[in-house]
């Protein structure tokens, strides 16, 4: 996730100061995220030989990881209707299926996804730093990214995402500029395990495609 961390920061460097950009993971002009994941070779087809629905849970788990990254980004992130539960479909017009968000027939994967995106949305709504804070690099390796959103010292949220199919143990130190005192307990706004800053280091275990939003 060094790459994801780098290009997220690039947006901060490259666009004018004060601009409010909209990151997104899908739109009316892109194939649905889960279909790009499940059927990369047919996701771009429009009329024939089109991609069908995912047959495994993995695309939904990847979507949840992507949503965790998205709803942690600065700016005004955009959710394309249906992505909140993992609507599927390839290129236009297949990416514009009728919405099923209020349906009782969502699959278990879709329900799991919807539940997580709601938690992410509520976390963003409730934590000012997650909406208005600056993006600050904290930690990234091939598997995991951890970034902070900082409005002022101590007014901070950490977003951690695992993009792999296995659990990842991440141990990372926090930049002193975040203003978090040693011994501070960081609570996961998504309901996962809390973490503690010990010796300026946080040790965190992320489930496969797992995520956490940690705030003091």
């Amino acid at each position, binding site marked *: 996730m*060094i*790459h*994801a961390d780098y*290009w997220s920061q*690039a*947006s901060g*460097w*490259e*666009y*004018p100061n004060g*601009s*409010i*950009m*909209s*990151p*997104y*993971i*899908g*739109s*009316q*002009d892109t194939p649905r*995220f889960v279909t*790009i*994941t499940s059927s*990369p070779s047919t996701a771009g087809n*429009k*009329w024939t030989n089109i991609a069908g629905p995912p047959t495994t849970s*993995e*695309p939904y788990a*990847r979507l949840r*990881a*992507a949503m965790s*990254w*998205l*709803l942690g980004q600065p*700016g*005004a*992130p*955009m*959710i*394309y*209707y249906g992505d*909140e539960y993992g609507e599927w479909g390839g290129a236009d*017009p297949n990416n*514009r*299926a*009728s*919405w099923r*968000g*209020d349906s009782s027939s969502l699959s278990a994967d879709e329900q799991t996804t919807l539940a997580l995106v*709601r938690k992410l*949305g*509520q*976390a*963003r*709504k409730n934590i000012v730093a997650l*909406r*208005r804070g600056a993006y600050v690099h904290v930690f990234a390796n*091939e598997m995991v990214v951890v970034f902070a959103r900082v409005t002022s010292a101590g007014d901070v949220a950490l977003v951690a995402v695992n*993009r792999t199919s296995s659990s990842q143990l991440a141990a990372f130190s926090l930049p002193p500029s975040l203003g978090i005192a040693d011994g501070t307990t960081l609570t996961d706004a998504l309901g996962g395990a809390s973490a503690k800053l010990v010796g300026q280091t946080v040790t965190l275990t992320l489930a496969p495609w797992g995520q956490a939003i940690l705030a003091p």
Partner: protein
Amino acid sequence: MVSALALKTYALLLAVLAAPSAFALAEPHQSTPFVPTSNGRITAAFDVAQDKVDFFLEHPYQSASPGAQSRNFAYDTYPGVRVGTSGSWLSAVTPSLVEYVSGTGIVHVVRATLGLTIDEWDFAPMNLARCALFTIVKVTRTSGTGAVDVFSLDNYHLGSGAPSPGADGESIAWNATRDAFYEWGPSGVAFGYGAIGASSFHGSTPNNPYQRLVAGQDLANDSGTSSPTTDAVCGHQFSLSNIATNASAYAGWYSVLDAGADAQASVDAVRTFIASRAPDQVLSDEIAAWKSWSSAAPSGASVLESSLFATSQAMLRMAQVNAGDASDGQILAAVAPGQWNITWVRDMAYSTVALARTGHTAEAKRALAFELGAPLAGGAYQSYVGSPYQISVVRYYGGGAEWSDVDSNGPNVEFDGFGLFLWALEAYVDASNDKTSLTTWWPTVQPKIADVLASLQETSGLIAADSSIWEVHWNGNQKHFAYTTAAAARGLCAAAHLATKLGDTADASKYLAAGQRARDAILGLRAADGTIAQATESLGAGTAWLDAAAIEAVSFGLVDPKKHTAKATLASIQSGLVPPSGRGFMRNQGGGVYDSAEWIFVDMRVGRALEASGQAQPSADLFSWNVAQASDNFGILSELHDRVTADYTGAAPMVGFGAGAYVLSLLDRGAPIVPSCDAFAAEPDEPSDAGPDAMTPDAGSMQDASNSDAGSAPSSGGCMIGDGSPSWLLFLAFFLMRCGGGTSTSDAGTGTDASTNGDAPTDAPVIDVDGGACETTFVYTPPSGTSATTVSVAGEWNAFSSPGVAMTNDNGTFTAKVPLAPGWYAYKLIVDGTWQLDPLSTTRKYAGAIENSGVTVSDCYLPSLALASQAITLGHYAAHVSFVPGAAQTQLDPSSITTTLRKDFSDTPKASSLDIDLAGLANGKYTLFVNAKDRLGRTAEPLRLVFWIEDDAFDWRDSLIYMAVTDRLKNGDPKNDVGPTSSVDARADFHNGDLAGVQQVIESGSLDQLGIRTLWLTPFNTNPKGAYLDSDGVDLVTGYHGYWPIKGREVDPRLGGAAALQGVVKSAHAHGMRVLMDFVVHHVHQDHEYLAAHPDWFHEGCICGTNNCDWDSHRLDCVFTNYLPNIDWTVPDASQQMQSDAVWWFDTFDLDGFRVDAVKQVPDAAVMNIGTAVRREFEKSGTRVFMTGETAMGWSDCDLSCNKWQYDLISHSIGPWTLDGQFDFPLYYAVPMQVSRATHTG
């Protein structure tokens, strides 16, 4: 004089009596708002609606130099009285009489209260060379007992700003030695307020005299303010002790302006002038001085006529600047607050002749000396005139600089002024016999006026085409006007007369011959019935060629009033130019509001010609009507009367075209018109039984005229609004556009045609700009690290001719002020020879196919409303709105204020106050509209204050956005469902989702659960029925997605129409959610209503993404597909339509922002112009409109530098007046697309 109130009642009664008649004539009535007084250094005015003085203009003229605005320092000043402990300020007591003391410029006001009759006189002393206003008060007891005190209150605003300074930072100090307060402030000027005779008490902030009197107290003998304060006031108190019944006592005081920071020298000068005189002595001396100056009316004048004659002389005197500097001697066209307190050459000539002929030769001489001494340096319009000249082509700034008014039709360049000056000079020399001055002046007059005029004469005898009396500007609007040639004939024959006086017989013969050729050429301007037409070009066009100004050919003694031409011209005016009021005459047939008002100048000049032609009764009726109107208006004559109601409109008091024209008419009454060029133009004698049949067309003259002018360019002539007054038309077009009314698409840059104008509402405000350009400031600062030497600005107003107007360098910042009529202009800066866009401009306007900066000029004569302060808390909105008077400085009409609160598309009237205090507001979005007018009924653009009441102040960074394809979200209303479209795959057809469905989703709380604060929906505009080929050329797609608009302002019925969209917005706002409209600015569908009506607003192109037509290099000219033509943003009309549509959508649906479609494929003009139009209207209270956009870019999996241009193109459209942000395309490809793939290891 009868009281103003009695007059109102009288007029109402007459109106009621007259109502049943279909031919009811408007009746005289009081409608002028101000009664001014002036000594040629300052102008003050009693406000008839406010019952107090609230106008004190620092110079009589409007503008000393380009960009300068004379300031009105008076907020208000008025007397008060106290009997025992009962006090009253007289601004609260309605006068029983307002008048001028006969033969003077002294304003007299009578009121009764507390058992007293109080006379108040306000005047600027004519023989005091200071900027002073005196008030003398006489108190007469009619009943009761008790000690009487008189109070003064001086509330002048000496803060920052112009033309109406604020009250910020004012200081006041008491000077006991001089019995005066001094006041100063950020304005840089100082005022002294002193007693005439000793005061008994004095008071100032912090013990405001206003409250002291109301409480029955004495003033507190304050020493002034201890530090600068906001809105400091002061006053004096004069204890008159116990006045017996029917006895009187006087008090007096003054206020004096000193342009320096210390008022003491001016106070001392005023005290020296007063010397030991008591207030009543000061008053009686002033009245006596005025009366000794005033000349008696000619014998035979009635009492009312004589009174108006006296007041008109006073008006001529008050309109003359008497400042002992370069401005001295000029005579303004109107006395302020009349909006034309500017010196026009033409108006001044009529004033000068009137002064000379009433024996005021000293004043006439100063007027002529001003023009001959004005620093023209040969004139700025020599390229039009052809040689150096000494008379401005239009008018003057106060300081004497030449002042044309330039708009997109070029400058006004008027040649009638040369002839009129010579006419005035002759009148002066005849009246004064001052051959000495004539001899001194002649070396200037001859080469730079008389010879210049002679050089403008064409072989036909006509003077070259010009802008003339009604100021039609240039660029093809100039014409060979009868008026200009008549003025030239009159002036050249005057020059012949003057040359003879000097013994120069050779030049006398030359000028006489030229004058006679001009005189005779007027006969060549006749229509078939013998009427003198407006101009060669108007006559050639065949419509709207009748112009009342042509009657000057008769009044100037060129055409025999008893012969056919004069009679035919008068008959045409009498049948063709009578307004609906039935009173007087309009100026021409143009149909514009200014054209169609009754002109007092026209009445006076036509009345004169009527009498001389033998129509004594119509002339007398016309004359007595105007005398009666003026008598009901304090002896003030107006520029115009409303065409229906005959209310005073335009400028009042009007001077050259009002008081001066009246004086000349009364002096001439009963006298024949004598030929001014030795004889009248030769015409056959009229048969004694002349009737309609006898009026044979003079075909020979017609033929001559058209032949003689064969070389001149054809003009749009009759298609213009008579005089073609383009600045007014620009205003109208702009006004319609701004109001979003209908679908007006007039191009502000080219004026409009007569039929469009004819559709204008007849109740449109008459107060308007006629040649009234507005100073527009351009500023350029070179980018940091660079410098510039020479910067200028040029644009459509001068046909982009280089260098245009030079910008003045002040410490590296370049500034220019350009007078422009209201409208939208393309322009560029020329920086050291290089044409460039103005980095500060917020619109782009194309001229031809060339991109330019755009500047929108508002009508500076209209007042405006501005938010001064605002406080928003839970449940509560408070704001203070400032009324900013227009250039004419007419103050607020407090009775005109309305405020309306809108929430959820429902309006509730609120208090009529500019101090807004709304409590008990539930959470949600509100819009407060504030409306106000000035006292002449000019309407300020409504102030729209958009605000939210909510628990936590919203920031657009809080806006997690949810995007829905409305057709695919939820079907909430089966009534608007449609069936399947033939041959279309269901995936590409309507699914019958609709706005009702969106509303249900909002109300279900599902979006709240996601933390959504902003909703972006696919476009609302109606899309076509039927299906069109997809980009593969095989499969069919319908317009379910909304991106194929066919209507500019209609919500697709399949989405549920307008009501359903309002429902969505209402529910969203109730959930604290913002709504973004998807605005398609790149293309329309081929069935779009605009394409049918305006094919020139669109262009075709190669299809994006095909061979030799890639999405990047052809991004601005390729089309998406063959049925989606591109909007051509280089067409100003198309741009204006899109702008006004955007405002319409926002206004109609209370939207919060835009997502702009296909930003990459449109020129900067699209995003800038829409952003500016919407932000200018909807962000006045600081609530930010969110604009995001789609600059669809890719991303390369390499380093940052190889993606640089992607970032730069997206960033290019982000800025304060454009987009807040955009969709982050590179980030999409860089991150989520990689996270989605198992294989990527990044």
